[in-house]
């Protein structure tokens, strides 16, 4: 059950990440082409720049959990790589616990800021889109990160082994 649910979640994350990367690149280039080929169109496409920056924020935060699961987050693991046994288990447990609490805390503040900007009515200058579309990436992303730390803590996933298993 859990595995199926995680598989679905992972697929959604992957499709969104890849889709956003492609969309950002294509959108930006369409903007360049339009500006050079049909300059009068440029103001009509000004929203692309703004949308790309929002998309970047979503890529960055949406991918936090997936990056953890794959052991891709930047870490100085020389010491951890050298020790074995219960000492390692304790340290990894501490890391996962701190990671879980930290991500939950940031996710909570992310919810607060999203609610605040939604209520304040702040919109983006060109798209006229509520700024919740920007800040919303923080609670979603850090919730996904918290989920991954929780899974690590529960022993359902082991990123420190995953990181070593992937060919460098």
């Amino acid at each position, binding site marked *: 059950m859990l595995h199926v649910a995680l598989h679905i979640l992972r697929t959604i994350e992957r499709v969104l990440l890849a889709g956003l990367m492609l969309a950002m*690149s294509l959108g930006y280039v369409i903007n360049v082409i339009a500006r050079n080929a049909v300059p009068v169109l440029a103001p009509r496409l000004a929203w692309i720049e703004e949308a790309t920056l929002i998309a*970047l924020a979503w890529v*960055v935060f949406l991918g936090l959990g997936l990056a953890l699961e794959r052991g891709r987050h930047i870490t100085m693991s*020389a010491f951890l790589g050298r020790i074995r046994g219960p000492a390692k288990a304790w340290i990894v447990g501490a890391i996962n616990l701190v*990671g879980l609490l930290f991500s939950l805390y*940031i996710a909570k*503040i*992310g919810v607060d800021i999203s609610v605040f900007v939604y209520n304040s009515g702040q919109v983006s200058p060109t798209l006229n889109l509520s700024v919740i579309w920007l800040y919303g990436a923080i609670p979603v992303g850090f919730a996904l990160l918290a989920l991954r730390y929780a899974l690590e803590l529960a022993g359902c996933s082991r990123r420190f082994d995953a990181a070593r298993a992937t060919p460098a």
Partner: protein
Amino acid sequence: MIVVALCALAFLMLFFGFEMLLTMGLPAVLAKLAFYPHMPDLVIAQKIMGGVNVSTLLAIPFFVFAADLMAHGVIAEKLTDMVRRLMGHYPGGVGHTTVGSCMMFGAVCGSAPATVAALGRLLFPELTRAGYSEKFALGLIAASAEVALLIPPSITLIIYGWLTGTSIAALFAGGLAVGIVLGIAYMVLVQVETWRCGARPAARPTWGERLQSLGRGFWAIGMPAVILGGIYSGGFTATEAAAVAVVYALVVELWIYRALDWKQVFRIAEESAVTTVIIFVLLAMGSLLSYFITLSDLQNVLVSFIGEHKMNWVMFLLVINAIFFVAGMFIDPNSILLVLVPTLFPVATSLGIDPVHFGLVVCLNICIGMITPPFGLDLFVASGTLKRSVETVIAGIWPFIAVNVVVLAIISYVPAISTALPKLLL
């Protein structure tokens, strides 16, 4: 007292293998709670977003994506094949090519991490193949990219010009000179390393082989040609060029060389996204940490320290370099620029230091901050894009930091290097 405790916590977390995002994020959050208890917590989310929601940073994910496409396809191979055929038979040829490509790339791009992202994946395999150790290759790539901040265009120099009212054209001319000096210094190091590690040059290719590799790589050469041409002709900005590079690589790999299909493109896009994530989350945490350092009274303490000790310009620059070096280890370079330059610039000019000279000393310090651990953006980008541990990158960076310190001393105490070219040209 609390500051010491937080620093100790950060170092312990770093040592025990906590993810870097926690190592930077947790002490920053604790600093907020300890020193600014009444400030709404929303500031934490705001600064986390502030670190990534910057339009000029877009060049990084785009160049990461373009480089991944080229590396999984065939453009990278064709380009490096050309480097090998044309330069591989000179002793140190591939190493010098790395420095040279970063200098060329720096002439269109004003961002050091974007330079690492764009060139790292092309040059790294070729460097190790030529016989350099992984450590040295990583260090060389991370360090050479700095030159992009010095060789014009450079956003760092533009911001300095805006803060101080110094001519940007003069700063650019000085930056070119300093960038070349730094490039030459790296080349000397490359030559020494080539002798030391005994990296053997490849056999001299025939002219036929050279022409053949050029012919095979026609569409691959198109990549740098489109980027350089597009920027110089005013077709697009450096950030836009990065997106153009992605689309160019897509078109060439999908439809001309047919080296990739859409399924592979999807997987590469996802991989580039994850690389972007691990770099940018550190930018986010760096922005949080830097904010609380900005708010602290540190800069006033520094200025009063400098005011109390009557200094001449020689002493002053020594102190400045020490301050920037330490600050550059921990704080993001833009914050250093915005916070320290306005307070230090009037002191510098009152001591008779030329504004252009001071600007280049500052800019070189910012460059060094990009490669000094623990917080060095170039180190993270090299680690993230080349999939090597950040310790390996750091292990390889020390000789380059040493070279930088020597160059910094020369630039600081031979003002003519920075000021001669601007005077000649303007």
